């Protein structure tokens, strides 16, 4: 079947899959960013208990693979009384996993904020919370945005795994089309191109834009 006919016939299914992938991506990013901020800042805490918890979390999620975590959350957590529908289990696992990687970016960026900024905030008798929120984090964000761009592309790729617990994302639809028509090259090829465009046309330029916006707010552009 020529690619043109293929697209006419299956574009609606593929578009639906792309939409689900979008949702998974956005929700997983929200989870990942929150986890990364909490764990990244927690790892710098003076309290050994908080610091220890964050280190264990980060090492645990970075040391085992995403697919293992996904299956564990979907198949094993119900035994502990927490049953998540596959859609939720999907974006939560992806978010928790990449959040652990993001936490290291947050920690690194916070540590890269010049010492003098901390001291100046303390000298103005800012509370630790206000210092973090108003002085340190805004500067740390500018430092960590470029590596976050790469991480978000990794995260997008990670969302393809949720198809393995039957979330009907783009990967899942491509597999379905392949199984019912054997048009493997067209089905998987189109999906590959959509993922590529997603990363190159949406994620990379918006991260560029965000970098500029943050630099402007800090008066550095």
């Amino acid at each position, binding site marked *: 079947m020529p690619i043109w006919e293929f697209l006419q016939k299956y574009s609606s299914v593929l578009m639906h899959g792309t939409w689900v992938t979008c949702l998974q991506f956005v929700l997983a990013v929200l989870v990942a960013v929150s986890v990364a901020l909490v764990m990244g800042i927690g790892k710098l805490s003076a309290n050994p208990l908080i610091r220890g918890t964050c280190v264990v979390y980060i*090492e*645990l999620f970075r*040391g*085992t*693979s*995403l*697919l*293992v*975590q996904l*299956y*564990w959350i979907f*198949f*094993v957590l119900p*035994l*502990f*009384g927490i049953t998540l529908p596959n859609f939720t289990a999907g974006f939560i696992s992806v978010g928790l996993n990449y959040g652990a990687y993001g936490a290291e970016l947050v920690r690194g960026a916070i540590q890269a904020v010049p010492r003098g900024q901390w001291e100046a905030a303390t000298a103005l008798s800012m509370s630790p919370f206000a210092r973090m929120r108003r002085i340190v984090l805004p500067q740390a964000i500018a430092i960590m945005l470029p590596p976050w761009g790469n991480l978000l*592309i990794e995260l*997008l*790729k*990670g*969302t*393809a*795994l949720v*198809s*393995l617990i039957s979330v009907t994302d783009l*990967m899942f639809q*491509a*597999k379905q089309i*392949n199984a019912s028509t054997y048009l*493997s*090259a067209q089905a*998987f*090829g189109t*999906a*590959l191109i959509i*993922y*590529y465009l997603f*990363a*190159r046309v949406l994620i990379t330029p918006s991260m560029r834009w965000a970098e500029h916006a943050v630099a402007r707010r800090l008066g550095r552009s």
Partner: protein
Amino acid sequence: MNFDWSWTLTWEIMPRLLWATANTLLAAGAGYAIALVGGLIFALAQRAAFGPIRWAVREFVEFIRSTPLVLQIFFVFYVAPQFGIQLSPWTSGLLAIGLHYSAYLSEVYRGGLEAVPRGQWEACRAINMSARDTYFRIIIPQALVPAVPGMGNYLVGILKDTPMLSVIGVMELMHAANSIGSEHYRYLEPFTLVGLIFFLISLPTAGLVKLLERRLRLGLGL
């Protein structure tokens, strides 16, 4: 809540899981070997004199790096037969994962190659070395040293990505855990053990990589 860890099951499935661990390590090792060579080819091709080759390889690497590995595994496994090439799950899996990491490693090599001082190239030119000798005897050995930390990170990365090979039926850890789970109707033990095994392999590997990096830096007087 019916959390009851069964030690009998644990001991019963342990040999199978350890056997599968060997397969996982084999897949990671073989995939990494492909990536080490493939990455070098991609990195060198991006320095070709002919512009269109540089551009095409650059785009190809970007494409591989920004699309999901599972999808690539499926693509290789299902599309190759359409062109009359029958590939076993192992072959297509290793090919896909090797290619994926070739793209990543080529970026690491590229950084290393660019870090080699200009004078080294000029010196080679001055003593009339052939392009081949210049690369293999002077440039590449120096480019590899700064590339080691990045290469080590991707060794851990490839290990953690091998579970994806289970989707086309490669008998590695995740595949074994899945089939154990469906045979015994219990997922707690196999999946938890698989997580534990991955953790126990990847943590020391990451530690070793860090140690090697420090040794190298000390050795080079950095």
